[in-house]
């Protein structure tokens, strides 16, 4: 079976169409889904193919999220579209106090197969309330799985796995990457299991641990570093919870140096958790401190020079990698 070039958006739609065909219990719920196949066109083909299984809601994030939970508890497998990940704030109780805790606090009586799809990320000049990367909140919430794909194939494979998972999964997909193309296997059984990272570039000098949009910064940075004679290994984490620490550790044991890259703001971001674990569990393998490259600690500003300044750049990754290598 061969690979085709698909956009991340098409990869998402394909995953959904395949899974919805396979399992009648799957449906999609959210605002403004049918008229334009999602506000980013991300559900192309679905409204026609599955009438009645992609449902427009009023603007009611709290209830939409809770609705997903209630439907998941009663035999369905809902996918909730959160419109913009920034509005998870409006469903935070349903996600963190209900979805995350229900199975546990009721002693494992029930399963909760829910996918919460959150388009996130900055770079579209959409300013403070439409540009956030909030995955770290959910990593700190026991009971949720957290998935952040980068390339189109990851989107497809991880979405299929998320849908098949019997637990609530927060699925973050970067808005600016929807149109980005990548090869996607032409195999309906192509699924990427949750909790498996991918070494996407091998290198012996430094490990770049990343996910989501950070992956593309690392790609760019690795090319630049290679020109300087530094061979970076890129580990795309793909799932933040559960985390594939084995792959992280294997890479680190080879390179002795690590840089973590993500678009969420630095302080308290996922990079903190990963750096904390690496230094704790692999202390003797570290030849340099674990560095983090992330957005600066401010809300995302509107004006292009400001937004560009706040977001991490490939050059920042290069500089960090260089600095740990030249130590």
């Amino acid at each position: 079976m061969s690979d085709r070039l698909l956009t991340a958006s098409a990869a998402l739609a394909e995953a959904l169409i395949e899974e919805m065909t396979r399992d009648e219990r799957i449906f999609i719920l959210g605002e403004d889904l049918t008229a334009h196949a999602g506000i980013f066109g991300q559900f192309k083909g679905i409204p026609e193919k599955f009438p009645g299984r992609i449902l427009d809601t009023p603007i009611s994030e709290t209830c939409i999220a809770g609705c997903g939970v209630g439907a998941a508890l009663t035999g369905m497998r809902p996918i909730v579209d959160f419109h913009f990940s920034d509005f998870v704030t409006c469903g935070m109780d349903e996600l963190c106090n209900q979805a995350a805790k229900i199975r546990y606090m009721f002693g494992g009586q029930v399963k909760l197969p829910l996918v919460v799809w959150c388009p996130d990320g900055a770079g579209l000049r959409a300013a403070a309330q439409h540009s956030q990367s909030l995955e770290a909140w959910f990593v700190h919430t026991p009971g949720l799985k957290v998935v952040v794909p980068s390339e189109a194939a990851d989107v497809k494979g991880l979405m299929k796995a998320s849908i098949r998972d019997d637990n609530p999964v927060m699925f973050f997909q970067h808005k600016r990457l929807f149109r980005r193309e990548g090869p996607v296997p032409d195999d309906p059984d192509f699924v990427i299991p949750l909790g498996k990272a991918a070494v996407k570039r091998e290198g012996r000098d430094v490990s770049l641990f990343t996910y989501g949009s950070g992956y593309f910064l690392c790609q760019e940075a690795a090319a630049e570093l290679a020109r300087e004679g530094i061979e970076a290994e890129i580990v795309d984490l793909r799932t933040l919870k559960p985390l594939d620490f084995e792959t992280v550790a294997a890479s680190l044991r080879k390179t002795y140096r690590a840089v973590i890259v993500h678009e969420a703001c630095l302080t308290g971001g996922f990079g903190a958790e990963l750096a904390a674990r690496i230094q704790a569990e692999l202390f003797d393998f570290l030849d340099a401190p674990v560095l983090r490259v992330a957005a600066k600690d401010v809300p995302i500003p509107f004006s292009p020079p400001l937004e560009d300044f706040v977001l991490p750049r490939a050059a920042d990754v290069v500089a960090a990698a260089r600095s740990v290598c030249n130590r």
Partner: protein
Amino acid sequence: MAKEKERKDDRPVETKTWRAMYRTMVKIRLFETLAGEYFAAGQIPGFIHLSIGQEGSSVGVCSCLRPDDYVATTHRGHGHMIAKGADVKRMAAELFGKATGYCRGKGGSMHIADFSIGILGANGVVAGGLPLIVGAGLSIKLRRTDQVAVVFFGDGAANRGPVHEAMNLASIWKLPVLFVIENNQYASTTPQSYSCAIGDLCQRAAAYNMPGYGVDGNDVLAVRETAARAVAEARAGQGPSLIENKTYRVRGHFEGDPQKYRDAAEVQRWQAENDPLRRFEDFLRRRGVLTAKKIRRIEEEVRAELDAAVAFAKESPFPRPEEALEDLFV
């Protein structure tokens, strides 16, 4: 008891159902009383909220439900659980924090559920059940069954935003949902008359184009009558209803509540004049459905069942500490 007299006793006699309802009310009352006692004795950890005086609402509504119907309940949910048919042994064990409890000790009073009989859970978050029940209603609709989904919530809960979203959503989709407000006059220390801009919460139904019923919640048959109608409509695909059962919280908000916000006399008046259990008992005696002797027998049987439940709870082991790491993910 005055109110009962005004009511014409022209209902068809449903002897068996009424007896069962009465027994359930007795069971709830006794369960709650015992829970209060064991809590006071320090044998139930955490904090508990009792529904004494509100049995008319839980039993009236749940008497109209099938085992496969859904119920989402609240922090004050023991009564709903029992009325829906939960096992008092496993409930008691859960309150005591034991491994044999419904949630293996992970939930406690505020987080009990029995998914096998459609109870989607108590909820420590006020109004937390409403979005979930809309999801259950949607699930019913998508699966094309004739189940119904019922959510109980308080007068205090009624002022939370999710209520608005849930009622609107259930209405536009005509979901088979019953929104049941238990207006027991208080939300913790706060009187309902203060917290809500209108007197009758059921009037809010109009804002969502659904029927709204204000019911004497301490008249279990009045509750049953209204719920039966709403349930029938929901099953027939006619959409949701809002029922406001007007009742009274006889105990403190939680056990141990100093209750500075109300007079003891107010409580006594309700207990003396408007106890749903006593009212139903009187009614059943007047209608010849129960005799003093039968009542005593029911009480004894229920007492025996609950004594056994408490014994079971006490004798059961605590969970092993490491069990704390189980049940997070499938």
